[in-house]
Protein backbone atom coordinates (compact mmCIF):
# COMPACT_ATOMS: atom_id res chain seq x y z
CA UNK A 1 0.00 0.00 0.00
CA UNK A 2 2.67 2.46 1.09
CA UNK A 3 4.47 1.98 -2.20
CA UNK A 4 1.41 3.36 -4.03
CA UNK A 5 0.36 6.07 -1.62
CA UNK A 6 3.67 7.73 -0.89
CA UNK A 7 4.26 8.86 -4.51
CA UNK A 8 0.65 10.01 -4.84
CA UNK A 9 0.88 12.01 -1.64
CA UNK A 10 4.16 13.50 -2.78
CA UNK A 11 2.61 14.54 -6.11
CA UNK A 12 -0.28 16.22 -4.27
CA UNK A 13 2.07 17.94 -1.92
CA UNK A 14 4.06 19.23 -4.90
CA UNK A 15 0.92 20.48 -6.68
CA UNK A 16 -0.04 22.49 -3.60
CA UNK A 17 3.19 24.49 -3.90
CA UNK A 18 2.48 25.55 -7.49
CA UNK A 19 -0.30 28.12 -6.77
CA UNK A 20 1.78 29.50 -3.90
CA UNK A 21 4.74 29.96 -6.22
CA UNK A 22 2.81 31.41 -9.16
CA UNK A 23 1.09 33.95 -6.91
CA UNK A 24 4.50 35.45 -6.29
CA UNK A 25 5.83 34.93 -9.78
CA UNK A 26 3.57 37.47 -11.47
CA UNK A 27 5.70 40.13 -13.11
CA UNK A 28 8.90 38.78 -11.66
CA UNK A 29 11.97 37.98 -13.75
CA UNK A 30 11.58 34.43 -14.96
CA UNK A 31 14.65 32.63 -16.21
CA UNK A 32 16.40 35.81 -17.28
CA UNK A 33 16.41 39.48 -16.42
CA UNK A 34 14.21 41.74 -18.53
CA UNK A 35 15.38 45.36 -18.36
CA UNK A 36 14.63 47.01 -21.73
CA UNK A 37 15.96 50.34 -20.41
CA UNK A 38 19.51 49.02 -20.78
CA UNK A 39 19.19 48.58 -24.58
CA UNK A 40 21.09 48.42 -26.88
CA UNK A 41 22.38 45.17 -25.38
CA UNK A 42 25.92 43.88 -25.61
CA UNK A 43 25.21 40.58 -23.86
CA UNK A 44 22.39 38.11 -23.33
CA UNK A 45 20.29 39.17 -20.30
CA UNK A 46 21.61 37.83 -17.00
CA UNK A 47 20.23 34.49 -15.83
CA UNK A 48 17.94 35.19 -12.86
CA UNK A 49 14.94 33.09 -11.81
CA UNK A 50 13.44 35.30 -9.09
CA UNK A 51 11.69 32.93 -6.69
CA UNK A 52 13.84 29.81 -7.14
CA UNK A 53 16.96 31.98 -6.81
CA UNK A 54 15.79 33.52 -3.57
CA UNK A 55 14.68 30.18 -2.19
CA UNK A 56 18.05 28.63 -2.95
CA UNK A 57 19.87 31.63 -1.50
CA UNK A 58 17.64 31.70 1.61
CA UNK A 59 16.28 35.17 0.79
CA UNK A 60 12.49 34.48 0.70
CA UNK A 61 12.04 36.37 3.96
CA UNK A 62 14.56 39.03 3.09
CA UNK A 63 13.14 41.03 0.19
CA UNK A 64 14.95 44.15 1.44
CA UNK A 65 18.31 42.52 0.72
CA UNK A 66 17.57 43.62 -2.86
CA UNK A 67 14.43 45.81 -2.78
CA UNK A 68 15.69 48.61 -0.52
CA UNK A 69 14.28 52.12 -0.47
CA UNK A 70 15.83 55.54 -0.18
CA UNK A 71 16.08 58.93 -1.83
CA UNK A 72 18.40 61.92 -2.19
CA UNK A 73 21.50 59.81 -2.34
CA UNK A 74 20.74 57.85 0.86
CA UNK A 75 19.83 54.18 0.89
CA UNK A 76 17.04 53.13 3.28
CA UNK A 77 17.40 49.51 4.39
CA UNK A 78 14.15 49.67 6.39
CA UNK A 79 11.87 50.52 3.46
CA UNK A 80 10.71 47.46 1.50
CA UNK A 81 10.15 48.45 -2.13
CA UNK A 82 9.44 44.95 -3.49
CA UNK A 83 7.85 45.26 -6.92
CA UNK A 84 9.35 48.68 -7.70
CA UNK A 85 11.70 48.28 -10.67
CA UNK A 86 15.25 49.38 -9.84
CA UNK A 87 15.17 51.88 -12.73
CA UNK A 88 12.62 53.99 -10.82
CA UNK A 89 15.45 55.15 -8.58
CA UNK A 90 18.59 54.15 -10.53
CA UNK A 91 18.67 56.10 -13.78
CA UNK A 92 20.36 54.52 -16.78
CA UNK A 93 22.58 57.59 -17.32
CA UNK A 94 24.95 58.92 -14.68
CA UNK A 95 23.42 61.46 -12.29
CA UNK A 96 24.81 63.15 -9.20
CA UNK A 97 24.42 60.96 -6.12
CA UNK A 98 22.76 58.11 -8.03
CA UNK A 99 24.37 54.76 -8.79
CA UNK A 100 23.44 54.20 -12.46
CA UNK A 101 21.29 51.16 -13.28
CA UNK A 102 23.86 48.81 -14.79
CA UNK A 103 26.31 49.41 -11.96
CA UNK A 104 23.52 49.05 -9.37
CA UNK A 105 22.68 45.59 -10.72
CA UNK A 106 26.30 44.51 -10.88
CA UNK A 107 27.17 45.76 -7.42
CA UNK A 108 24.11 44.15 -5.85
CA UNK A 109 24.41 40.76 -7.57
CA UNK A 110 28.20 40.36 -7.66
CA UNK A 111 28.94 41.79 -4.20
CA UNK A 112 26.59 39.31 -2.53
CA UNK A 113 27.92 36.38 -4.55
CA UNK A 114 31.48 37.40 -3.64
CA UNK A 115 30.69 37.83 0.04
CA UNK A 116 28.87 34.51 0.30
CA UNK A 117 31.31 32.78 -2.04
CA UNK A 118 28.24 31.30 -3.79
CA UNK A 119 26.59 32.14 -7.06
CA UNK A 120 28.18 33.25 -10.36
CA UNK A 121 30.81 36.02 -10.49
CA UNK A 122 32.10 35.76 -14.08
CA UNK A 123 30.58 37.70 -16.98
CA UNK A 124 29.41 34.70 -18.96
CA UNK A 125 28.20 32.74 -15.94
CA UNK A 126 25.46 35.36 -15.55
CA UNK A 127 25.21 36.51 -19.17
CA UNK A 128 24.97 32.94 -20.45
CA UNK A 129 24.91 33.23 -24.26
CA UNK A 130 21.53 32.38 -25.79
CA UNK A 131 21.47 29.69 -28.45
Amino acid at each position, binding site marked *: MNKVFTPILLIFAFMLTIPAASAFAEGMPEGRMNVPELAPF*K*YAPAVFDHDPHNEKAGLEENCIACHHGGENGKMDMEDDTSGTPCVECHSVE*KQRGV*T*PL*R*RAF*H*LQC*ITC*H*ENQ*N*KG*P*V*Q*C*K*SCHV*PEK
Partner: protein
Amino acid sequence: MNSLYNFAVGPLAWAAFIILAVTAVWRLWSMYNLAKQKDASSVAYMSWQFSLRSIVNWLIPYNSLGWKTNPVLTAVTFIFHICFVVLVIFVTPHQILLENAFGITYPTLSSEAADVLTLITIACCCYFVYRRVTNVTVRYVTRSNDWISLGLVAAPLVTALLGSWGVGGEIMPLLHVLTAEALIVAIPFTRLAHILFALFTRAYIGSEFGGVRHCKDW
Protein backbone atom coordinates in the same frame (compact mmCIF):
# COMPACT_ATOMS: atom_id res chain seq x y z
CA MET B 1 37.14 28.33 -8.41
CA ASN B 2 35.04 31.35 -7.49
CA SER B 3 37.21 32.31 -4.56
CA LEU B 4 40.30 32.04 -6.75
CA TYR B 5 38.69 34.22 -9.43
CA ASN B 6 37.52 36.78 -6.86
CA PHE B 7 41.02 36.86 -5.43
CA ALA B 8 42.53 37.30 -8.91
CA VAL B 9 40.29 40.22 -9.96
CA GLY B 10 40.44 41.80 -6.48
CA PRO B 11 43.50 41.77 -4.19
CA LEU B 12 45.84 40.21 -6.76
CA ALA B 13 45.01 42.90 -9.34
CA TRP B 14 45.73 45.62 -6.78
CA ALA B 15 48.99 43.89 -5.85
CA ALA B 16 50.02 43.65 -9.52
CA PHE B 17 49.43 47.36 -10.19
CA ILE B 18 51.14 48.46 -6.97
CA ILE B 19 54.18 46.24 -7.68
CA LEU B 20 54.32 47.66 -11.22
CA ALA B 21 54.14 51.25 -9.96
CA VAL B 22 56.87 50.78 -7.34
CA THR B 23 59.27 48.77 -9.51
CA ALA B 24 58.72 51.04 -12.52
CA VAL B 25 59.69 54.11 -10.51
CA TRP B 26 62.68 52.23 -9.12
CA ARG B 27 63.84 51.10 -12.59
CA LEU B 28 63.47 54.60 -14.07
CA TRP B 29 65.25 56.14 -11.09
CA SER B 30 68.20 53.76 -11.21
CA MET B 31 68.50 54.23 -14.97
CA TYR B 32 68.54 58.00 -14.48
CA ASN B 33 71.27 57.68 -11.88
CA LEU B 34 73.29 55.40 -14.14
CA ALA B 35 73.03 57.94 -16.97
CA LYS B 36 74.12 60.72 -14.62
CA GLN B 37 77.09 58.68 -13.47
CA LYS B 38 78.28 57.28 -16.80
CA ASP B 39 77.21 59.97 -19.24
CA ALA B 40 76.71 63.17 -17.26
CA SER B 41 77.08 65.45 -20.28
CA SER B 42 74.09 63.78 -21.96
CA VAL B 43 71.89 64.68 -19.00
CA ALA B 44 73.03 68.27 -19.34
CA TYR B 45 72.15 68.26 -23.03
CA MET B 46 68.59 66.93 -22.54
CA SER B 47 66.20 69.29 -24.28
CA TRP B 48 62.39 69.31 -24.46
CA GLN B 49 62.41 70.59 -28.01
CA PHE B 50 64.73 67.92 -29.45
CA SER B 51 63.12 65.20 -27.33
CA LEU B 52 59.57 65.93 -28.50
CA ARG B 53 60.78 66.43 -32.08
CA SER B 54 62.29 62.96 -32.09
CA ILE B 55 59.31 61.32 -30.36
CA VAL B 56 56.77 62.87 -32.74
CA ASN B 57 58.76 61.97 -35.84
CA TRP B 58 59.14 58.35 -34.74
CA LEU B 59 55.41 58.09 -33.96
CA ILE B 60 54.57 58.65 -37.63
CA PRO B 61 54.63 55.38 -39.64
CA TYR B 62 57.34 55.29 -42.35
CA ASN B 63 58.51 58.77 -41.40
CA SER B 64 61.87 57.74 -39.98
CA LEU B 65 64.69 55.99 -41.83
CA GLY B 66 64.39 53.15 -39.32
CA TRP B 67 60.74 52.59 -40.19
CA LYS B 68 61.49 52.69 -43.92
CA THR B 69 64.16 49.98 -43.98
CA ASN B 70 61.78 47.16 -43.03
CA PRO B 71 58.27 48.06 -44.26
CA VAL B 72 56.52 44.82 -43.24
CA LEU B 73 57.93 44.83 -39.73
CA THR B 74 56.95 48.50 -39.43
CA ALA B 75 53.35 47.78 -40.44
CA VAL B 76 53.09 44.82 -38.06
CA THR B 77 54.68 46.82 -35.23
CA PHE B 78 52.26 49.73 -35.56
CA ILE B 79 49.20 47.47 -35.96
CA PHE B 80 50.26 45.38 -32.97
CA HIS B 81 50.78 48.32 -30.60
CA ILE B 82 47.63 50.18 -31.64
CA CYS B 83 45.41 47.08 -31.40
CA PHE B 84 46.88 46.08 -28.04
CA VAL B 85 46.28 49.49 -26.45
CA VAL B 86 42.78 49.76 -27.95
CA LEU B 87 41.90 46.30 -26.65
CA VAL B 88 43.17 46.95 -23.14
CA ILE B 89 41.09 50.11 -22.83
CA PHE B 90 37.98 49.52 -24.93
CA VAL B 91 37.03 45.91 -24.36
CA THR B 92 33.65 45.77 -22.53
CA PRO B 93 34.60 43.56 -19.55
CA HIS B 94 37.55 45.85 -18.71
CA GLN B 95 35.23 48.88 -18.71
CA ILE B 96 32.63 47.03 -16.61
CA LEU B 97 35.31 46.16 -14.04
CA LEU B 98 36.34 49.83 -13.91
CA GLU B 99 32.67 50.85 -13.68
CA ASN B 100 31.98 48.47 -10.81
CA ALA B 101 35.11 49.47 -8.93
CA PHE B 102 35.30 53.23 -9.64
CA GLY B 103 32.13 54.21 -11.53
CA ILE B 104 34.08 54.90 -14.75
CA THR B 105 31.84 54.65 -17.84
CA TYR B 106 32.69 55.09 -21.53
CA PRO B 107 31.72 53.49 -24.88
CA THR B 108 33.23 50.09 -25.65
CA LEU B 109 33.79 47.66 -28.53
CA SER B 110 31.28 44.97 -29.45
CA SER B 111 32.52 41.47 -28.66
CA GLU B 112 32.76 40.71 -32.39
CA ALA B 113 35.04 43.72 -32.96
CA ALA B 114 37.10 42.75 -29.92
CA ASP B 115 37.49 39.21 -31.28
CA VAL B 116 38.71 40.52 -34.64
CA LEU B 117 41.23 42.89 -33.04
CA THR B 118 42.45 40.09 -30.76
CA LEU B 119 42.95 37.79 -33.75
CA ILE B 120 44.90 40.51 -35.57
CA THR B 121 47.09 41.09 -32.50
CA ILE B 122 47.79 37.37 -32.14
CA ALA B 123 48.67 37.24 -35.84
CA CYS B 124 51.18 40.06 -35.22
CA CYS B 125 52.72 38.01 -32.39
CA CYS B 126 53.02 35.06 -34.79
CA TYR B 127 54.89 37.30 -37.23
CA PHE B 128 57.28 38.36 -34.45
CA VAL B 129 57.94 34.69 -33.68
CA TYR B 130 58.41 33.87 -37.37
CA ARG B 131 60.89 36.73 -37.76
CA ARG B 132 62.91 35.71 -34.72
CA VAL B 133 63.19 32.17 -36.03
CA THR B 134 63.84 32.81 -39.73
CA ASN B 135 65.90 36.02 -39.79
CA VAL B 136 69.50 35.04 -39.04
CA THR B 137 70.53 38.46 -37.75
CA VAL B 138 67.56 38.63 -35.40
CA ARG B 139 68.03 35.04 -34.29
CA TYR B 140 71.63 35.81 -33.37
CA VAL B 141 70.61 38.55 -30.91
CA THR B 142 67.58 36.69 -29.54
CA ARG B 143 67.79 35.75 -25.86
CA SER B 144 65.33 33.83 -23.71
CA ASN B 145 64.22 37.21 -22.37
CA ASP B 146 62.75 37.94 -25.82
CA TRP B 147 60.80 34.68 -25.89
CA ILE B 148 59.52 35.18 -22.35
CA SER B 149 58.37 38.70 -23.20
CA LEU B 150 56.60 37.54 -26.34
CA GLY B 151 54.94 34.67 -24.46
CA LEU B 152 53.80 36.96 -21.66
CA VAL B 153 52.15 39.24 -24.22
CA ALA B 154 50.55 36.42 -26.20
CA ALA B 155 49.13 34.50 -23.23
CA PRO B 156 46.42 37.01 -22.18
CA LEU B 157 45.45 37.50 -25.84
CA VAL B 158 45.02 33.79 -26.47
CA THR B 159 43.13 33.18 -23.22
CA ALA B 160 40.87 36.17 -23.95
CA LEU B 161 39.99 34.84 -27.38
CA LEU B 162 39.37 31.29 -26.18
CA GLY B 163 37.30 32.65 -23.30
CA SER B 164 35.25 34.73 -25.71
CA TRP B 165 34.58 31.57 -27.72
CA GLY B 166 33.49 29.77 -24.55
CA VAL B 167 36.39 27.30 -24.58
CA GLY B 168 37.29 25.98 -21.14
CA GLY B 169 34.29 27.45 -19.31
CA GLU B 170 35.17 29.36 -16.15
CA ILE B 171 38.84 28.33 -16.26
CA MET B 172 39.70 30.50 -19.26
CA PRO B 173 38.68 33.91 -17.80
CA LEU B 174 40.64 32.98 -14.67
CA LEU B 175 43.71 32.14 -16.77
CA HIS B 176 43.22 35.39 -18.69
CA VAL B 177 43.30 37.45 -15.49
CA LEU B 178 46.30 35.56 -14.08
CA THR B 179 48.38 35.76 -17.27
CA ALA B 180 47.57 39.46 -17.63
CA GLU B 181 48.73 40.05 -14.07
CA ALA B 182 51.93 38.15 -14.79
CA LEU B 183 52.46 40.45 -17.78
CA ILE B 184 51.86 43.57 -15.68
CA VAL B 185 54.32 42.52 -12.99
CA ALA B 186 56.93 41.45 -15.57
CA ILE B 187 57.03 44.80 -17.40
CA PRO B 188 59.96 46.36 -15.51
CA PHE B 189 62.03 43.13 -15.49
CA THR B 190 61.85 41.96 -19.11
CA ARG B 191 62.22 43.37 -22.60
CA LEU B 192 58.73 44.74 -21.98
CA ALA B 193 60.53 47.48 -20.03
CA HIS B 194 60.55 49.39 -23.33
CA ILE B 195 57.03 50.41 -22.27
CA LEU B 196 58.72 52.43 -19.52
CA PHE B 197 61.88 53.44 -21.36
CA ALA B 198 60.88 54.01 -24.99
CA LEU B 199 59.99 57.69 -24.61
CA PHE B 200 63.14 58.38 -22.61
CA THR B 201 65.34 56.49 -25.04
CA ARG B 202 63.97 58.60 -27.89
CA ALA B 203 64.39 61.78 -25.84
CA TYR B 204 68.00 60.84 -25.04
CA ILE B 205 68.94 60.09 -28.65
CA GLY B 206 66.89 63.02 -29.98
CA SER B 207 68.64 65.43 -27.63
CA GLU B 208 72.08 64.17 -28.55
CA PHE B 209 71.44 64.35 -32.29
CA GLY B 210 69.67 67.71 -32.04
CA GLY B 211 71.89 69.44 -29.49
CA VAL B 212 75.35 67.89 -30.11
CA ARG B 213 75.47 66.54 -33.66
CA HIS B 214 72.97 69.07 -35.01
CA CYS B 215 71.19 66.59 -37.23
CA LYS B 216 68.00 64.57 -37.39
CA ASP B 217 67.73 61.21 -35.66
CA TRP B 218 64.92 59.85 -37.85
